[in-house]
């Protein structure tokens, strides 16, 4: 699986990675804080595979993506966040392939001088990642494999920004 580390054209402080490989949230927080005395706020989110969904027992999760589009899409979402809030360093990591219960799926980290912009930008990035980035989840359940349907609530939430 290709690992994509891209720097946004507008900033050297954006890291976007799409990979089968796991990540360590602590390492990513250290990266966000390294050589960074300007930002008082570091906000991060980690998404993980949970054992229940829609009342069903989940045993695993497969993540498919559109390789040519994913890094472009994630960078566009980060650029949109930068246009809305004053933020500095941004890390977005999304895993693909077969994952097990409790495994990491996604990491979003944002730094800013103040917490308001960092919180808002991190939530915006996650919300748009849910409706615009080309990833699809297929759950393995005790009763078979099921593609996860998109939720209208995710769409409704994202368009409120």
């Amino acid at each position, binding site marked *: 699986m290709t690992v994509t580390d891209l720097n946004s054209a507008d900033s050297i402080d954006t890291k976007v990675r799409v990979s089968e490989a796991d990540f360590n949230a602590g390492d990513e927080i250290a990266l966000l804080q390294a050589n960074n005395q300007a930002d008082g706020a570091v906000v991060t989110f980690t998404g993980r595979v949970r054992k229940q969904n829609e009342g069903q027992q989940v045993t695993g999760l497969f993540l498919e993506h559109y390789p040519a589009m994913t890094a472009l899409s994630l960078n566009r979402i980060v650029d949109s966040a930068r246009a809305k809030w004053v933020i500095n360093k941004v890390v977005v990591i999304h895993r693909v392939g077969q994952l097990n219960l409790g495994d990491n799926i996604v990491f979003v980290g944002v730094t800013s001088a103040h917490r308001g912009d960092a919180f808002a930008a991190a939530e915006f990035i996650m919300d748009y990642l*849910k409706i615009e980035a080309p990833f699809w989840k297929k759950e393995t359940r005790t009763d078979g494999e099921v*593609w996860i349907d998109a939720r209208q609530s995710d769409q409704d939430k994202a368009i409120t920004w």
Partner: protein
Amino acid sequence: MLTILFFARLREQLGQTSVQLTITENTTVEQVLTQLIEEHPSWQSPLSSNNILAALNQQMVSKDTVVSAGDELAFFPPVTGG
């Protein structure tokens, strides 16, 4: 020639990862879907879904967008990452 890609549930329903399609000038995404159904009648149901999204050269587009020879057009169900 237009390259068309399918992903996730749609890829499984069609049993295809990609197809090539010969198109005329000023063909829209919607017309591509119509042309695909004409060539593959069994694809009618999955490709007629209102939920199908389209990306042209890796950027989401509406179905009235015009495509050109050499483009990469992808169809997929609503995304569910994150």
